């Protein structure tokens, strides 16, 4: 930076390409020798009232002692400004970083230093219940877009100096801020180092959502339809994971935290399990596992049975199924694929459609697709029932919806071509893939394969809190956790 205010302002204006939201409020500070000053802000990022109260008013009303520009600068920093957050810096990159983060940058003529004053006032969504992780008994707070608010939501729940927030910047152009959150005594230093390395290696130009980082954070050679990276919109869930030695990554602008390492069994755990009675929690867990199996296998097995093994149907069901299928023009495989495909279209439409129209679409979907198509003989009622049941079951574990969808389509095709034999073989392949997958060195199928009796207390059942509290199982202590650096070698 230059000592000349004009030169610094010109440089910054050029860097911002004379953008319309780059605003400069020039003023004269009345010291013995009047000193030119300027407050640089990005329109909409700062609160004008706070700027006036904590910067402009104090500057204009203060009687400065005689001194050089540097001495006046120090006096402003220490005694004049009433903001709680003041940072001194001297590079243009920092000036850009602070001003685009909602700080007001104060520059003085005659000194190379500048001050960033915390006066953020940009509008953001208020803390509300996350839509994708609804619970009955837990907190109704979910993450929002600003990073600082998300940090606060976590800090309020873990009032422990062990909780560390570490800043990183990713994205050559977007310069998006990330926070690594971990409990210093619980998290593994090797896992932390590896996460930092992978984030630094990412060659993203713009990081606009946390999902962009998933592929960089997954282990090499562990690509699979199941994600080795966990996502949560709930601060209470993240805090629970931090206590188990996991690391959370908050991304500015995304109302979700990435959690690493991530295991398959965690997809079936929810906050409600720990608030409800253990027997009910066990029932719900087992229900979730069964729903997952039904969601994935039911359409494929139905197709396989109808196409190749009709003798496996019970006699009563066999008559009804045969009658309904014989009345339709398409084979059962094609029917199942078409119904599943149409259902996916409706689901996507339902996500994107404006709320006022949503009701109309759901009625059209139910009546037209369901009722009329069956009456007209385009599809059979038995196939429709099977697909509908599988679809409902897939929402029990909503976080697994993408792999469930892919597997469901695959099994329908495989069942239609190869029968039950093909489905069993495909399942073997999927299991081999899942069993070989790791998440930062921790086997993805931990607790199940490798089997750990100790961690079974929180897999199919939820043991009582007396048992769970005796010892927290740290994720890096799971059996057969690998040295992540072996991956590099």
């Amino acid at each position, binding site marked *: 930076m230059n000592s000349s205010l004009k030169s610094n302002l010109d440089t910054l204006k050029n860097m911002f390409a004379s953008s319309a939201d780059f605003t400069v409020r020039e003023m004269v500070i009345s010291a013995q020798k009047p000193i030119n000053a300027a407050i640089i802000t990005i329109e909409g990022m700062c609160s004008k009232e706070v700027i006036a109260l904590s910067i402009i008013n104090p500057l204009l009303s203060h009687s400065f002692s005689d001194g050089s520009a540097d001495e006046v600068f120090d006096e402003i920093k220490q005694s004049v400004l009433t903001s709680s957050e003041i940072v001194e810096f001297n590079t243009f990159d920092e000036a850009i970083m602070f001003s685009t983060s909602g700080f007001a940058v104060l520059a003085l003529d005659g000194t190379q230093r500048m001050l960033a004053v915390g006066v953020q006032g940009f509008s953001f969504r208020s803390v509300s219940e996350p839509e994708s992780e609804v619970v009955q008994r837990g907190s109704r707070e979910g993450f929002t877009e600003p990073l600082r608010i998300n940090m606060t939501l976590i800090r309020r729940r873990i009032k422990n100096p062990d909780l560390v927030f570490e800043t990183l910047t990713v994205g050559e152009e977007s310069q998006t801020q990330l926070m690594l959150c971990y409990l210093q005594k619980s998290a593994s230093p090797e896992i932390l180092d590896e996460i930092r390395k992978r984030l630094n290696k990412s060659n993203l130009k713009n990081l606009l959502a946390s999902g962009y980082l998933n592929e960089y954070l997954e282990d090499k050679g562990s690509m699979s339809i199941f994600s080795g990276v966990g996502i949560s919109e709930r601060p209470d869930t993240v805090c629970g994971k931090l206590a188990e030695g996991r690391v959370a990554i908050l991304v500015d602008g995304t109302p979700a935290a990435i959690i690493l390492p991530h295991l398959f069994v965690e997809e079936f755990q929810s906050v409600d399990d720990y608030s409800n009675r253990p027997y009910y929690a066990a029932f719900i867990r087992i229900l979730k596992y069964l729903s997952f199996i039904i969601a994935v296998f039911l359409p494929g097995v139905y197709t396989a049975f109808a196409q190749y093994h009709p003798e496996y149907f019970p006699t009563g069901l066999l008559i009804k199924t045969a009658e309904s*299928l014989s009345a339709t023009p398409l*084979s*059962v495989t094609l029917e199942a694929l078409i119904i599943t495909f149409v259902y996916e279209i409706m689901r996507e439409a339902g996500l994107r459609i404006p709320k006022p129209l949503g009701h109309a679409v759901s009625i059209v979907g139910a009546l037209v697709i369901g009722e009329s198509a069956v009456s007209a003989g385009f599809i059979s009622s038995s196939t429709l029932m099977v697909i509908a049941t599988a679809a409902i079951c897939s929402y029990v574990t909503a976080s697994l919806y993408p792999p469930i969808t892919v597997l469901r389509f695959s099994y329908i095709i495989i069942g239609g071509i190869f029968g039950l034999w093909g489905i069993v073989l495909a399942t073997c392949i999927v299991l081999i893939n899942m069993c070989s997958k790791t998440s930062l060195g921790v086997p993805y199928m931990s607790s199940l394969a490798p089997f750990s009796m100790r961690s079974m207390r929180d897999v199919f059942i939820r043991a009582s809190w007396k048992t769970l509290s005796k010892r927290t199982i740290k994720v890096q202590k799971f059996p057969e956790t690998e040295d992540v650096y072996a991956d590099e070698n």
Partner: protein
Amino acid sequence: MFKKLSALFLCAISLALSGCSQSKQIDKAYIAETVAVFENGGKTYYSFYLLSDSETPVYTAVAAESLEDACEKAKKESVPNLMLSKLGLYVSEKSSAEKNLKGDTQFIAENAYFSPLIYVTLCGDGVVEMLDSDKEFGEKLEELIILNKKKDSSVSVTSLSIFNNFYENKGKDLALSYINSDKELKAEVIKMPLKK
């Protein structure tokens, strides 16, 4: 690139060679649940009763010397997609059973698609006609067979049991279930001598 190419090659080969055109398909299959053996005009007939949703029984009868012969004729003449995996009841008039029961039991035992637990019963005159007119009659027969077994445990009521008795060859008579419809429908036990 190599992985993608090999996966594509694999899928192509699998689809080409899998023979998926040979699928049975539930909507095209004619599923036989009962077979009845009777004599008419000096000839032996095999009647296959098919699963259906209609009010009256759906059946097809062929003249044949054995169950094996009857299955082939039925597939050629009337029901090409005849499916026998769900066959649950074999009813034979006493006169036909003396000639055909052993051979038919052997045929059932040698073919994987038959269930070994097909109920087998002999019957008197008029019982097979009741199968033609009453759709629920087959279930009534099965109930009577099960009751008969409970009353007398030495009775052989399944094809598995009958096969084992035929081949045990200890000179004992074979106790079989017999459905009589003289006055009312009832199940009895009759003995058939086992030839050494």
